[in-house]
């Protein structure tokens, strides 16, 4: 067993403290230690984007992030987007456009598209496709996903 460290960070707007092994990933911390299972474990090596979270306003693969590196930072997971206007619009748009099939990739896509639209609110379809190039949908429902993201600006 490796050394453990106490860390404190903002998680979905709430001050959170936890003791974690130094080799643990942020994804393992979210799911196994904090019980936030909206963030998905897909590939575990940064290929699929299912574990996408926001850290200090930028998206990262939580499977590649050391949990200890969350210390002092502002972390948002899919659960934290529930109370967020753009997050809510994206969720509604995904439902309206039938952009959810098995649903496993959906939290990652919503997190990443939230980041894409925050950086570029009027992103065209090409920008959206580039923006979500790190997210895989194994049901291959990309057309509807891109449509849902592109339309999210207008939903609601």
């Amino acid at each position, binding site marked *: 067993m490796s050394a453990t460290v106490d860390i404190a960070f903002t998680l979905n707007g709430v001050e959170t403290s936890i003791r974690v092994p130094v*080799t643990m990933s942020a994804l393992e911390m979210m799911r196994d230690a904090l019980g936030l299972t909206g963030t998905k474990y897909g590939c575990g*090596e*940064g290929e699929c984007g299912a574990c996408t979270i926001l850290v200090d306003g930028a998206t*990262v693969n939580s499977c590649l992030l*050391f949990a200890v590196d969350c210390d002092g930072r502002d972390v948002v997971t899919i659960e934290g987007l529930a109370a967020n206007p753009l997050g809510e619009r994206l969720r509604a748009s995904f439902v309206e456009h039938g952009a959810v099939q098995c649903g496993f990739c959906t939290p990652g896509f919503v997190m990443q598209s939230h980041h894409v639209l925050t950086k570029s609110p009027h992103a065209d379809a090409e920008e959206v496709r580039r923006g979500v190039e790190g997210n895989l949908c194994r049901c291959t429902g990309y057309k509807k996903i891109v449509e849902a993201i592109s339309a999210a600006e207008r939903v609601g």
Partner: protein
Amino acid sequence: MTRVERYLVPRTIAEAAGGLRDGNVTIFAGGTDLMPQSKSGKAKFGTCLMNIRRIGELRGIKRTASGFSIGALTTITDLRDSPEIKVGFPALWRASDHFASDQIRNAATIGGNLANASPAGDTLVPLLVFDARVVLVSRPNGALQTRTIPMTEFLVGPGKTSRRPDELLTAVEMDAPPPGFTSRFFKFGTRPALDISTISIGLGAVRDGEKLRNVRVAIGAAAPTPIRAPHVEEALEGKVVDGATIAAAVSAADCDIRPISDLRASEWYRHELVHNMLERMLSDVGHG
């Protein structure tokens, strides 16, 4: 797995360099390479894990007397968002734009890409084109010592560099290219995103009328490290880029590259790719 006994989060270069004197320290910043390598067993942790991401002075792109210094913690997204990089070092900008995915670009750092020294490391090929130098800092007996070495001396093998265990990679420096210098980067993979280069090529030169001067060619994933291609450069230097010059440069590439067969491509296919992509890039330069 080695038991990690200590975790260090230095705030300054001096503090980090002090911590490295103990030896057996594993350094990380973005974590995008170390995390999967440690999970797969490819990388073993030292007894001490050092997170250098809180060292503010390692971040950012700074102008120097001769060009630019890119701090080790500069992320690939920082490079991609930098107007100075886009205008002054287009091959490096292109490599940053084609780098993995947004999520990985937001976390991965140029220092990490260098220190990992993958033969397919995306930023290494353009950095070779720009004759970049790697800055290493140590603190052998209290005082900080800086060693600045060319990329070609830094990269010594797959995943191997000439960085000593007590040294911290703090920056990579590039001189402003000569006036009129244009550069390009091409990466071949099976899909545009999240792909490790099958081969990559960086090309830079000053156009002097019909001729090319100051030609620099670098090739990735075709030798134990990303390499400069001196035979290709010699075949192009001072020449008009016509069919004969391109043919000579393409066949000269075989003197420079030593590709292997792996799961991404066979040795034969890598030769073909280097030939065909180099030909395509040079035809493009010839017409542009």
